[in-house]
């Protein structure tokens, strides 16, 4: 290889990727952190204000309500998607006819644009024309205000996120299930374990790592939710249904309060990283004891 590694050749091979990546990814991150310490509205020169934006955030009730909404979605999503996807994966790895087709159909929402998913679900969740309340009404009940009210929106967003993600997570479990060593599974069957015992004492413990991957995926996914809220409620009423990212977007591009917007972005990034890392550390400690 040494013959083909003259300095200009190495530089030539690295330069394009290095340039685009540094200018359009690394520089923007530094820029965001930098401007999060400033007061900047895009017109006047940015003014250094120290930690003022972060202090504002501490007293900003909308920040806290969007943090709470994000956490509610996170909790529901992890508690529902991971077990549900695992169970469907187990179900679909049995001898059901057409299991492959079913798997592809359940996976389908994962490739639909999030913006379109939001649009579709407006017609499921809308209190007046939506499918759910229409169904409840035909049974004689009055359905609640799934979206647009003051309390249920995070729950509805979680529901949509589950619909979007479950098929994707289940294929990861499916791959994990199929990579289990066959002899162990057969041995447990010979020892007379029931299906349930096999699942509880053999399959689940052997798939610890897969559970970890799936949980982290679901968590990082929740911190990226933006389009769903954007279409379902636009954050309304009065930002009560905003999640962190949609609130950051509003502050930055609608209010044009760029300094504060960037400090929100920095905090969201940090939170996402901390929650994922925290989960991984907890899990490792749990395995050791």
């Amino acid at each position, binding site marked *: *290889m040494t013959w*083909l*590694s003259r300095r200009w050749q190495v530089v030539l*091979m*690295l330069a*394009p*990727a*290095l340039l685009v990546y540094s200018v*359009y*990814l*690394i*520089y*923007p*991150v530094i*820029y965001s952190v930098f401007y999060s310490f400033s007061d900047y509205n895009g017109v006047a020169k940015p003014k250094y204000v120290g930690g003022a934006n972060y202090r504002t955030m501490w007293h900003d009730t909308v920040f806290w309500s969007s943090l709470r909404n994000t956490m509610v979605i996170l909790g529901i999503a992890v508690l529902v998607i991971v077990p549900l996807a695992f169970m469907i994966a*187990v*179900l679909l*790895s*049995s*001898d*059901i006819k057409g*299991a492959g087709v079913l798997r592809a*159909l*359940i*996976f389908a929402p994962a*490739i*639909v*644009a*999030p913006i*379109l998913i939001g*649009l*579709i679900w407006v*017609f499921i969740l809308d209190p007046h*024309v939506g499918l759910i309340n*229409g169904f409840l*009404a*035909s049974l004689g009940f009055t359905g609640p205000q799934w979206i647009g009210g003051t309390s249920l929106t995070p729950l509805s967003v979680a529901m949509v996120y589950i619909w979007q993600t479950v*098929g994707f997570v289940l294929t*990861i479990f*499916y*791959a*994990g299930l*199929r990579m*289990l060593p066959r002899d162990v599974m057969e041995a447990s*069957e010979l020892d007379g374990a029931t*299906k349930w015992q096999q699942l509880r004492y053999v*399959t689940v413990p052997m798939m610890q*790592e*897969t559970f970890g*991957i799936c949980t982290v995926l679901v968590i990082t996914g929740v911190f*990226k939710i933006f*389009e769903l809220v*954007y*279409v379902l409620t636009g954050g309304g009423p009065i930002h009560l249904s905003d999640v962190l990212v949609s609130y*950051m977007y509003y502050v930055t*591009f609608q209010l044009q309060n760029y300094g504060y917007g*960037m400090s929100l*972005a920095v905090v*969201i*990034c940090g939170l996402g990283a901390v929650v994922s890392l925290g989960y991984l550390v907890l899990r490792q400690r749990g395995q050791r004891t």
Partner: protein
Amino acid sequence: MSARLTSASEGELRDALSTTAPRATVRSNRRGLRIATVVAYLITFVVLLPLLWILLLSFRSSNDILVHPFSASNLTTANYRTVIHTLDLLLMYKNTFILATVSVVLGLIISFMAAFALTRMVFRKRRRRLQRILRYYFLAGLAVPVYILLFPVYRLDLTFHLFGTYWALILPYIATTIPFNILLLTGFLADFPDEIEQAAIVDGVGLFTLCTKIVFPLMRPVAATLLVLNIIYVWNEFPFAVTLINKPSLTTVSLGASQFQGQWSTDYGAEMAAAVLVLLPQLAVFGLFQRQVIEGMTLGAVKG
């Protein structure tokens, strides 16, 4: 013991995901299997219900939807005619197609070049560390979420006078896909023996021919995975599109779809017809390449 999903080779993972010759992990008796089948079909039906519902709505008039939400009589194709007359679907598709093709192909080429330099080329002595550090520098981008980039990239595009051109989006799309491209490509190259390349070099092959004729063809499976992942990403991308597109003539599929609500605020039938028209081609393509897409996205998630 664990299932070792992350350390599994790509081939193993591909096999595990393949739909043919299923290995039964639950060997059920007849009755259990029958219950499992019913439950599985029921779940699939529930997942598909929202899609079927908008399909039904798209064939009904808005008045009818408001008065009898559940009726399936009085179906009409009027909504589709309205949409086709007022919405420039072809333009949306053209824009998205150009963006996806250019950014994904260019992104793959330059990622491949960098990955090759980082794994195969010899850096002068004592520069070995630089080679490793550069790789980590690229991989650091995996931890960066897109939304922190929105405003800075908006400023960059303003500075470079890129607004109103495809490049306003192509450059950030390339930048955000580089880290994962490099992760998969360097991983593959590091595991792959370089004897063929050595032989080719002895035969006097130049750098360009070596890359295009010998190394790249070997990497076709990884390249295909990345192609699928990146195209889906760019096709569905919304945050950059809504921030960086300021001309109606550059509207992408996602951006166009976000405007359906305003466009037909009370015409629910038309809104759903538009959604169906955007959704159907996407689902059709997924149906055709279903195996590659599922494999690609799962591999991507596990390796990331």
